[in-house]
């Protein structure tokens, strides 16, 4: 599904990612953990095509194609979806209109007929139930005046509607209370399928109790310093990131 090879990225005048390689197979859930400033969110944003970064080396293949050559909208149409850490407020554009335009852009790209308002409503109603979203929500402007939890739920709702092949969740758990975390996780879990890959970027292990990953990677100083199964997340929770930031030389054997 996704093949990242020796990816180097600059942003804001600094080298942020210094040679990352990561292979994500179809149906897999990968968690990317790491201390603040390690480059987790940069990786997520680079995958989505954010214009604020410069790729200085390496490559990203998505379904065998060069992802870095694609515009953000092309990536989205091909099936890349990033749930934003800070979803943008768009006054004056209502959710339903926005989401229908997005869905139809994806469907058009895939050679599917565009949905009319009725068909669209039928489709979103189902998805809204899973994410416990109120119908009035559709007529509100995108993210405007939403609480932090509502914004994050809206991200996962959009993901549910657009049905991406690769979902990248950028710190979707930050700022969520336990109820919102449960709802958001249910939404993500409901979408797990053998055809869909997920990258969960998070600082804390808590989210991974709900969205259980197949692999956990630890990012520090722009490099992946550890990769292991889900047990790595528990280890990080217990020990914190200190031992990773301090250097990997003194890590206990067998950890």
């Amino acid at each position, binding site marked *: 599904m996704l093949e990242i090879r020796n990816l180097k990225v600059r942003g804001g005048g600094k080298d942020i990612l210094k040679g990352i390689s990561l292979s994500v197979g179809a149906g897999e859930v990968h968690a990317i953990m790491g201390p603040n400033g390690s480059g987790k969110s940069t990786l997520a944003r680079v995958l*989505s*095509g*954010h*214009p604020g970064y410069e790729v200085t080396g390496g490559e990203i293949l998505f379904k065998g194609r060069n992802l870095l050559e694609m*515009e*953000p*909208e092309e*990536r*989205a*149409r091909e099936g890349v*979806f*990033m749930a*934003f850490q800070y*979803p*943008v407020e*768009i*006054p*004056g*554009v209502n959710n339903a209109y*926005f*989401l229908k*335009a*997005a*869905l139809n*852009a*994806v469907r058009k*790209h895939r050679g599917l007929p565009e949905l009319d308002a009725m068909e669209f409503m039928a489709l979103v109603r189902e998805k809204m139930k899973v994410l416990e979203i109120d119908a009035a929500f559709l007529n509100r*402007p995108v993210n405007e005046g939403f609480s932090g939890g509502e914004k994050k739920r809206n991200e996962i709702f*959009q993901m549910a509607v*657009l049905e991406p092949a690769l979902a990248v969740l950028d710190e979707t758990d930050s700022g969520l209370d336990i109820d919102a975390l449960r709802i958001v996780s249910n939404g993500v879990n409901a979408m797990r399928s053998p055809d869909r890959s997920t990258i969960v970027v998070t600082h804390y292990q808590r989210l991974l109790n709900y969205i259980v990953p197949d692999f956990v990677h630890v990012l520090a100083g722009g490099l992946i310093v550890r990769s292991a199964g889900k047990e790595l997340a528990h280890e990080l929770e217990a020990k914190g990131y200190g031992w990773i930031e301090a250097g990997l030389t003194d890590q206990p054997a067998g950890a």
Partner: protein
Amino acid sequence: MSNVSNTTPAPSPVLPPAGAGAMRATPPPPIGQTEPYTSEWDRTEAARAGQSPWLRNRRRAARDRFVEAGFPGTRVEDWRFTNIAPIAESRFTLAAPRPITRGDLAAWTFAGAAAELVFVNGHYVPALSVTGGLPAGVVAGPLAAALAADGPARQAFGAVVPSPLSTFPALNTAFFAEGAFVLLPPHTVLEGPIHLLFVTTADARAVETAMTHPRVLIVAGEDSQARIVESYAGTTGATYFTNALTEVSLGAHAVVEHCRVQRESEAAFHVGLVHVDGARSSTFTSHAFALGGALVRNEIAAVMNGEGMECTLNGLYLATGGQLIDNHTTIDHATPHCSSHEVYKGVLGGRARGVFNGKIIVRPDAQKTDAKQTNRALLLSDDAVIDTKPQLEIFANDVKCTHGAAIGQLDDDAVFYLRSRAIGEADARTMLIHAFAGEVLDRVGLAAVREPLRAELTARLSAVLAPAGGRP
């Protein structure tokens, strides 16, 4: 977007009387020349033998007043950003009637009007107009006929425009041949809107450049209600000059929604003045859309002359290419307990220039005034320019006045957010501009006016965004 907002401006030292125009100590010299206008006035006056002495005197006085005032140059503060030399230095002739069919008007008319008056080249065309559907007592008809006799039209004529007349009201009064008179008797509620359509048709190859001076007089009696739509349009590509003046007087508790849609030719000059005077507890709402014209000056001045009046000014302008659109608004809180709410938004592309000057006056006894002004402009190109100036003159101490201005480009984060959801860049930009403009458009209650306008805005915007692809 960068935001500026404050609530306590320094009071201005000079206090003009209510309804008066700007005061000038030693006025800068006028520009251009008045002679082409006066000789055109003299030339055409002979053909007006049938006019009443009352009207002739008013028009002649206005002609003299125009000569006295002359054309203001950019050294006059109110005209600092708008150089009217193209108007002041040109020779225009009063537009001659030209045949036109109802089908030619299709782009500018809408369904559901209670009455529709059509003026072509300044002349009322009864054959194209529809006036049958009005309730008894309501007048919507040609102004010249209404002024022929001493009656309500004469009483209201010129009553709302500050005197002495400034340049363009004087020019309008001197030259106007026809216009619309709308009279709502007390307690009348008009369901459907009244549409006043002013069209200039000109041969793009014509040697002479046409001008018209449409005049609209709206008198809303006590406790009456109406919605009035004024449209200004012209032949694509034609150069001509429209100098329109509207006077609105609202009786106590009257409710008037006034919608002004300006879609002149891209080569036209348009000066559009609206003067409003409202009595106790009246409500005036203006929706002003400026889409056309090469050189455009809009002025709305509302005097709140009775306690509890509410005034709302909504404005939206779209300027592209080399267009200049200037909006000057004045809200004069002359009495206590009045509230005003103003939102003006501009979308500027190409080398277009926009001007917004929003003056709010709060008179010494206008306590409990609640005034809110917002002005935003979206610049779609590096060459587009907006000059914006809030002007608050507050002389009462128990008031709430806020104003805010924001000028900027489209929000890059919002564009990226939409693109990350599969929406193409051009569509994303269009969507965001519509959202920006929608705030003003959505306030127009009449769907028959609002929705075609939305479609037209879409078409005009895609023309702006398509060739250059907007900003990188």
